[in-house]
């Protein structure tokens, strides 16, 4: 079969402050093929596609469609050039019907909308693709899988030559995924060229003709389907150097069970089931690492344990107490701490000075208020000396770079904000620390320091739930590691028991451990 390129992206570079998201990438798409772009979160896949679709301007590089050079200033240009995109996050208007969403932005229908005619057209259109839908249903009533179908219909309705699917199966059930793949194959037969972005190995192997692997903004591999071998792909995705950086840590003196989760289920922000029955136990003095590509339920797990998200099913026990319905304040006072991945959203108040942020989660403690007779506690002056001491201690111990402890947090760099949050939560001496990406964005010295702190906490009988996309960090710090994929724990092991390829395979859903074997780790 002659490979005929329909799209060529040459030497694309896209930078954001502090990071090169796409680093001199060349990409070719051939007519009538399914090209998969494989990579972890942050590898640059979505950024690259946003450049193609006109949502971002590249800093360098050129794009050619059917050998004609194009420049996309906004999605309208991309749509006009025959590119359709189904985004990772839904761009549907929940309050409108399916038909209304599909025709959104189209000018062909004139001033007055003849809903009956449009509905008929859409039903026909969907039928040709083998999809049966009722176009008059409002989108908020649909399941995640059905919404995905509407998104695809919407993109196809504009008659593209190239269709980009960005992590299309992230909220789909296996059944939905099968249907999706059937549709993709049909579209391919009809001459559509497709780019399929994913971090899921087994799906990529099922559907792709060619596979490109991205890591840290660079292309690290390009293979045909028949050349691709799961282990090889996993290694490319995750990186072999990981093994070389692992240091051994002293094993824990493990005590009683601090946290127990039974069958936890919770919904994600998009209405999908983000946690699908997670069970685990953490003992005091233990670091339990959660490995996996981010977006597989880790964030929801952390939020549910901390109390920011309500589980739909299941129970959470802390030191034997059922805290499933407890408030965040209760959990803080019981000794649970959380370092959130979304630091600016949850972890700090940017408009307030550093010393006030340093006590954000500690306001229930008595020592921060001066003792004063008669006056009720909430109206007594806060003990500035104590608070400033917390702050200056934190600054010096965690090497926060800041003009003073009075500086507003929004004027600090991201890395320093991270240090403030980490310092605050660790210094609270919690019984359970949920640490989500604690060293992300930090330099080596800071990373080392925080890792030491975590070990120190562990030695003081604190338990740590360590969620990280840095595999080497997990391997060197954790006593046990659980791998999360698609809202479930698909594997558990102690560092050293599994080799890197197996880990990569489980992280990308290609392999799964038996339930009984996983449960052994919680014994």
């Amino acid at each position: 079969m002659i490979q005929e390129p329909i799209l060529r992206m040459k030497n694309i570079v896209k930078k954001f402050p502090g990071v090169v998201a796409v680093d001199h990438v060349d990409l070719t798409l051939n007519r009538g093929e399914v090209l998969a772009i494989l990579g972890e979160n942050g590898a640059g896949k979505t950024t690259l596609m946003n450049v193609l679709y006109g949502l971002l301007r590249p800093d360098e590089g050129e794009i050619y469609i059917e050998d004609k050079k194009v420049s996309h200033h906004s999605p309208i240009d991309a749509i006009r050039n025959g590119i359709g995109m189904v985004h990772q996050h839904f761009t549907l208007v929940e309050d409108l019907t399916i038909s209304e969403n599909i025709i959104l932005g189209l000018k062909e229908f004139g001033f007055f909308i003849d809903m009956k005619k449009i509905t008929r057209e859409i039903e026909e259109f969907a039928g040709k693709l083998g999809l049966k839908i009722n176009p008059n249903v409002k989108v908020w009533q649909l399941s995640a899988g059905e919404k995905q179908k509407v998104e695809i219909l919407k993109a196809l309705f504009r008659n593209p030559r190239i269709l980009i699917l960005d992590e299309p199966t992230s909220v789909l059930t296996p059944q939905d995924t099968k249907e999706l793949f059937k549709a993709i194959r049909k579209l391919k037969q009809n001459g559509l060229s497709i780019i399929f972005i994913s971090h899921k190995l087994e799906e990529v192997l099922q559907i792709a003709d060619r596979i490109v692997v991205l890591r840290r903004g660079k292309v690290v591999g390009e293979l045909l389907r028949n050349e691709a071998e799961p282990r090889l792909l996993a290694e490319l995705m995750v990186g072999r150097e990981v093994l070389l950086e692992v240091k051994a840590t002293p094993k824990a003196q493990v005590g009683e069970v601090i946290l127990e989760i039974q069958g936890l289920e919770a919904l994600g922000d998009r209405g999908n089931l983000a946690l699908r029955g997670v069970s685990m136990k953490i003992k005091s003095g233990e670091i339990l690492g959660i490995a996996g590509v981010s977006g597989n339920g880790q964030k929801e797990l952390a939020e549910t344990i901390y109390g920011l998200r309500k589980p739909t099913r299941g129970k959470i026990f802390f030191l034997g107490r059922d805290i499933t319905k407890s408030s965040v304040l209760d959990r803080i006072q019981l000794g649970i701490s959380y370092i959130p991945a979304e630091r600016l959203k949850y972890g700090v108040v940017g408009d307030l000075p550093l010393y006030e942020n340093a006590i954000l989660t500690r306001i229930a403690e008595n020592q921060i208020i001066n003792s004063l007779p008669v006056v009720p506690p909430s109206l007594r002056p806060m003990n500035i000396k104590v608070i400033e001491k917390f702050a200056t201690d934190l600054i010096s111990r965690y090497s926060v770079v800041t003009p003073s402890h009075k500086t507003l947090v929004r004027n600090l760099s991201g890395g320093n904000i991270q240090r403030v949050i980490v310092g605050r939560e660790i210094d609270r001496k919690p019984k359970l620390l949920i640490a989500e990406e604690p060293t992300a964005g930090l330099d080596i010295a800071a990373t080392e320091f925080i890792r030491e702190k975590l070990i120190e906490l562990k030695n003081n009988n604190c338990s740590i739930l360590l969620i990280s996309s840095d595999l080497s960090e997990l391997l060197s710090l954790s006593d046990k590691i659980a791998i999360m994929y698609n809202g479930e724990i698909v594997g558990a092991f102690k560092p050293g028991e599994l080799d890197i390829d197996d880990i990569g395979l489980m992280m990308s859903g290609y392999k799964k451990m038996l339930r009984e074997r996983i449960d052994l780790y919680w014994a």
Partner: protein
Amino acid sequence: MSLELVQSIIGLGLAMSAPVAISSLGEVFSERSGLINLGIDGIMLMSAFVSFHAVFLTGNIFVGYLLGIATGIMLGLLLGFFTVILRFNQVVAGMGLYFLGFGLSDFLYRALYADKIVFIPKTSTLRIPLLSEIPLIGGALFNQYPGVYLMFILTGIMHFILYYTRVGLWVRALGENPRACDAAGINVTLYRLFSLALGSALAGLAGAILCLEITGLFYENLTYGMGFIAIGLAYFGKWNPSRSLVGSLIFGVTWSVGISLQDIFIKIGRPEMTYFMIMLPYLAVLLSLLAISRGARPPASLGKPYYRE
């Protein structure tokens, strides 16, 4: 309670509902696109003054209405400049428009007319031939000021535009998910400005109606917060033009009941009860807000400025 009294209550009630309903209609439309316009009371005041002055100078009612609408559009675009283009906080900017309209309209009146109360000829009622002969309600319904007819016609038109045209679909989508609209190629800025201008034009019309049909004169704070009631009615109507019309009618009729019973209260020696009755429409709106709030969900992007990330 004579038949004539009932008729006059309904008649007056409908006339009173017109300005509230029309400005509420405008607010519903703007809010549907995600913009909250707290300044419509100020717009109504300015347009009331402008239409008053125009009629005083020219004697032509149409000029009065037209200039009132034009005032609304201009002020709406001014607000749009701050909120849509500069992405300034909509609540703060809206209150500013209110203060501006309030102060400027009053100042201009005083500067031109000093402390005099000046009457202008009110718009005459339009009598619809056959229908107004209907016994009982014919007079009240079909021998009415143009504002009343406009109230019903415009509600129908806005309802149609919002739910049956492409423009209305874009506006509704904007209010819920501007990012999706941007990704679909809709010009967010343009459509938001348009909906704000249209909403303000209606507020301007409402102000003109208030002055030219109901009061026939202008004084400080002529609207007495009617613009804010209109905003409340938009909530009450759950951002549906027809439903907010119902709320406006309730408001107008309860107001009219209070005024009309004034003579009766004076007769029974309790004149202050009129004021008690006048409280009713406001109380009614408040209670109804509470009653329907459980199910009410405003347009998701209401009040949030849109930036393309």
